[in-house]
């Protein structure tokens, strides 16, 4: 088991290195030079050259790559081209809104998908199952930003309970501001979870140990919640951790729709402003988040299911 853990961590390190290399190479392919970006179009050429020298971007690519890796290992992501502030601080300012959104969205999505999948499996083949199935098939095709805007039109504006956008300043504000974005994110991610969880529930319900429990007279509800659900959990955890990238992309869209000052809206702004240090920083953080998701997923599966630990 220890060998497995070591192997997994080694592959994570290699993957992170790969992400860094790709981000670096893509940054090199970008048009324009940093000194010009920072000083503006009217700055004299020798000032631009001096700044480029100070930033070290006139050195060979190879040296630049290693100093880039070194800086990141020291936790230094450079300075933003558009505001000249350190990227670390800018990212930290935007971290809160994204963290709120991801946690609330994921929690809601799990509640929604476990409920729907259990209902569909319990009433397999009835109109309940058909309706849930139809919902999962068609709602995958609904654009995330559109369902968000519909929630604003149909819920936020008529009732006035929730703000149309923004994140507010107090914790109470944050709670009110995050409800609709989290619901939107949950609607975007739940359908795939429902499909996988339902299929796994049906598979466990059809297996020998559930039949044996049924023949001992265990009530149907208990069969579902105590016998089938835990066994369906492992593949469901795998799906959620695979979905992590999709979840983050959903967060990027939702933050833009609801004007949340998070990392996703920061990324889109940085791309339109061609602010490469900021793009690199956020991309890197997203990659780390996705990879941690899959690590946490693996660890959870090992905790829930002893068989995973052996392999």
């Amino acid at each position, binding site marked *: 088991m220890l060998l497995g853990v070591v192997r997994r961590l080694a592959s994570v390190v290699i993957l992170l290195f790969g992400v860094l290399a790709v981000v670096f190479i893509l940054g090199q392919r970008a048009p324009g030079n940093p000194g010009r970006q920072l000083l503006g179009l009217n700055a004299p050429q020798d000032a631009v050259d001096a700044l480029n020298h100070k930033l070290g971007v006139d050195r060979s690519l190879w040296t630049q790559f290693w100093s880039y890796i070194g800086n990141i290992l020291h936790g230094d992501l450079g300075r933003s081209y558009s505001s000249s502030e350190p990227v670390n601080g800018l990212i930290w300012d935007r971290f809160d809104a994204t963290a709120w959104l991801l946690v609330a969205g994921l929690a809601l999505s799990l509640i929604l998908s476990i409920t729907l999948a259990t209902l569909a499996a319990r009433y397999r083949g009835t109109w309940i199952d058909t309706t849930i199935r*139809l919902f999962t098939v068609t709602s995958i095709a609904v654009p995330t930003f559109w369902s968000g805007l519909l929630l604003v039109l149909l819920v936020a504006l008529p009732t006035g309970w929730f703000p149309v956008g923004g994140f507010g300043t107090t914790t109470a504000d944050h709670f009110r501001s995050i409800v609709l974005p989290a619901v939107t994110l949950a609607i975007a991610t739940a359908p795939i979870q429902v499909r996988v969880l339902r*299929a796994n529930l049906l598979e466990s319900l059809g297996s020998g140990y559930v039949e044996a429990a049924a023949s001992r007279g265990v009530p149907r509800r208990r069969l579902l919640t105590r016998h089938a659900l835990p066994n369906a959990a492992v593949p469901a955890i795998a799906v959620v951790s695979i979905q992590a990238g999709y979840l983050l992309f959903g967060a990027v869209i939702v933050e833009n729709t609801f004007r949340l000052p998070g990392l996703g809206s920061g990324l889109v702004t940085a791309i339109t402003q061609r602010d490469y240090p900021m793009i690199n920083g956020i991309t890197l953080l997203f990659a780390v988040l996705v990879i941690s998701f899959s690590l946490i997923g693996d660890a959870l599966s090992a905790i829930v299911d002893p068989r995973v630990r052996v392999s």
Partner: protein
Amino acid sequence: MSDMTANLSTGEVVASTRTPASRLGYRIGLAIVGVAVVLAVVGPFVVAHDPYQQELMNRLAPPSGEHWLGTDALGRDVFSRLVVATRVDLGVGILGALLPFLLGTILGCVAAYFGSIWDVIVMRLTDLVLAFPVYILIITLIAVGGSGIKTLLIAFTGVGWVGYARLVRSVVLRVKNEDYISAARLGGVSHGRIMVRHLLPNVIRSSLTLLVTDVMFVLLGLASFSYLGLGIQPPTPDWGAMIADAQPYMQQQWWLIAAPGAMVALVGSGLMLIGERLDDRTY
């Protein structure tokens, strides 16, 4: 032979899931996608207004007999833009799914058929792409390549071929040692012809299922990136950008965001319903 019975038995399971509801869903899906394709092909020739023509005196007009869905913030006819966008979005959606389909099928087939080093290279490449956070990769590519259709197509192809390659490889690995392949080989049939005529027909059905749902995912991705301002650039009409443009006025002109979003959702659901029916798996 064991494969045959397995296929037969899954065939029976498939038959049992073909309820009237799923058949109805399939027909609805076909109808929606059919209408969308017709709109994409003939729409731009029959719309009453030029989708690029601005009437600045007639901005944000409500729906009327003249402008069925009113006009947008630049006074352009929204209905015409909606119809012309069908060609743009569906076209890019289909192309963005076909390119990875072709690349993945070729790579998967070659990897499995020739084996050894080919297989290792292709499989390691798929591992690499799968390990990468896909959408983040696409966003990075857009950040560098600039927004636009070309970058999006490159990004979708670079990421999407993996599914087809794995699928085709698994099927080809299963059937490449069958007697009829050896017989064809002994009969002097070339490797290329064996792959195209004898191996690929085995996998076409599952590949098509993936292709149909992929068109939906590309369509959705395209709309999302365009909404963020990173996809199709103005003034080309596109559903995602139309919604982004209309967002500031949504409180009064709600139809400006309702109509394009409904088009994405409808066409996407239609594709999903078709894909669901093609899908052999029972869940």
